[in-house]
């Protein structure tokens, strides 16, 4: 992995985001009444992002917010990788992006026109703005990347899948480089209403709205929706070496396994299988993993099941492995969550310091691992890290990074 770029509720560059995570700062806040008074759940994690500062006016009008995030993060990632595209064979560079909801705002706007305004004047580019593969396509167009251009939509594991599949594609020799990651912009009225109806969103912590997401805590009430994008440059190791690229980490393992018991309720077996497969594909034992960035959504169902799954796979090593859910601070970025959290895990690996789980005062008795509650923790021996991404629909994806 030679480059990374972020747009997130905690900032738009990796160093800033990681610094705030280590300090336990939250990007979660309450939406003003003016957003829409009919929302009963107004706690979200928005990204401070102005597309107009980064993207030309002529291009901007063709981009939903979800594609704007992706283009901005991809440009950052390519710059970080010190990539000179003119020196590359563009047919051997691909794009692999995860998104759950695609151009949600454009879809919302279209429905509003048709149903609320009773108008037939739907904006002419609605289809192009809203389609799920628009973010990946625009990255390909912007940088002239003619290799495979793929979009994965497996809900909350979309971008972990996009990264894992991209790494496989490189390992298979199809391509030399993949721009991989995820993007999501779900903070629209219609989308928020749909999530509200599912009764999985966190209730507001009235004393401190920024602390509304409480993974692994006894008083956790649900997840907080966030927005942003996280994009990585994945590169064949030899290709990176030949061009003298800075290497952040090695994508060492990827495991994919599916729950089939229920459309939303997670299962220990599926999550455990994905972790075990990731470990075996990396050739690592559980005790080699020095940090797990948990899926840790803050829902009743996820956190206890994930804890049990970690214990099943890690056995005696489970208690000694620091586990944190940074969703407590950046919220749940759905299709971008896996990529953001994998980048965070890699930053932990690089800095030999892991971010805490914030807002965890009294743990759920069923959640009995080491959740790094005291604040950031220095771990000099960190050599490999794991990032878990589990999803509605049951697609569990686990990524492992190793020191390069």
């Amino acid at each position, binding site marked *: 992995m030679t480059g990374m770029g972020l747009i997130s509720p905690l900032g738009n560059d990796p160093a800033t985001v990681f610094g705030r995570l280590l300090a336990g700062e939250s990007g979660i806040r309450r939406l003003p009444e003016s957003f829409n008074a009919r929302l009963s759940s107004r706690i979200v994690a928005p990204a401070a992002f102005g597309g107009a500062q980064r993207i030309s006016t002529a291009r901007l*009008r063709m981009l939903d917010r979800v594609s704007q995030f992706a283009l901005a993060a991809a440009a950052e990632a390519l710059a970080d990788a010190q990539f000179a595209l003119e020196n590359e064979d563009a047919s051997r560079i691909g794009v692999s992006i995860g998104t759950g909801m695609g151009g949600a705002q454009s879809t919302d706007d279209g429905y509003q026109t048709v149903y609320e305004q009773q108008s037939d004047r739907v904006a*002419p580019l609605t289809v192009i703005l809203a389609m799920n593969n628009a973010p990946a396509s625009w990255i390909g167009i912007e940088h002239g990347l003619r290799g495979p251009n793929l979009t994965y939509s497996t809900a909350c594991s979309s971008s972990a899948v996009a990264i894992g599949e991209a790494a496989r594609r490189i390992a298979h020799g199809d391509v030399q480089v993949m721009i991989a990651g995820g993007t999501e912009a779900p903070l629209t009225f219609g989308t928020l209403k749909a999530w509200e109806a599912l009764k999985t969103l966190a209730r507001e912590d009235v004393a401190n709205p920024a602390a509304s997401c409480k993974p692994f805590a006894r008083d956790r009430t649900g997840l907080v929706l966030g927005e942003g994008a996280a994009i990585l440059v994945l590169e064949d190791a030899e290709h990176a070496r030949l061009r003298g690229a800075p290497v952040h980490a090695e994508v060492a393992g990827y495991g994919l396994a599916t729950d089939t018991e229920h459309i939303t309720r997670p299962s220990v077996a599926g999550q455990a299988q994905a972790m075990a497969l990731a470990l075996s594909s990396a050739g690592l034992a559980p005790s080699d993993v020095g940090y797990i960035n948990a899926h840790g959504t803050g829902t009743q169902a996820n956190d206890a099941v994930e804890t049990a799954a970690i214990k099943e796979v890690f056995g005696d090593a489970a208690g000694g492995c620091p586990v944190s859910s940074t969703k407590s601070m950046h919220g749940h970025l759905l299709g971008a969550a896996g990529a953001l959290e994998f980048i965070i895990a890699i930053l932990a690996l690089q800095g030999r310091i892991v971010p805490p789980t914030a807002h965890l005062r009294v743990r759920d008795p069923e959640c009995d691992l080491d959740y790094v509650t005291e604040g950031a923790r220095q771990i000099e021996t960190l050599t490999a890290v794991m990032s878990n991404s589990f999803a509605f629909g049951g697609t569990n994806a686990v990524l492992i990074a190793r020191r390069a």
Partner: protein
Amino acid sequence: MSPAPTPFEFLRLIIARDFDVDPQLLQPDARLEDFAVDSLGLIEIMFAVEEQFHITVPPEPPDARAPINTLNDLVRYIEGLIAEQHGAASADPVP
């Protein structure tokens, strides 16, 4: 109150705004492709034109009748639609 813009004035306005073009460059003989106004761009422009001049753009592509290369070609096409649908080549919006 300023008079309603003519088709030419209106096109200049929205192409300058949406395609980020210096209005001075948008002369009648300016070529649309030089400003990245492609087939999709034309669809967006005609969507705005429909609202402004209260006309309906027919389903066939604008260049089905005559080629549309320059800004003036597009002005003539719009004036034709206004004349057909409102009986005169008037630029005034119909109430």
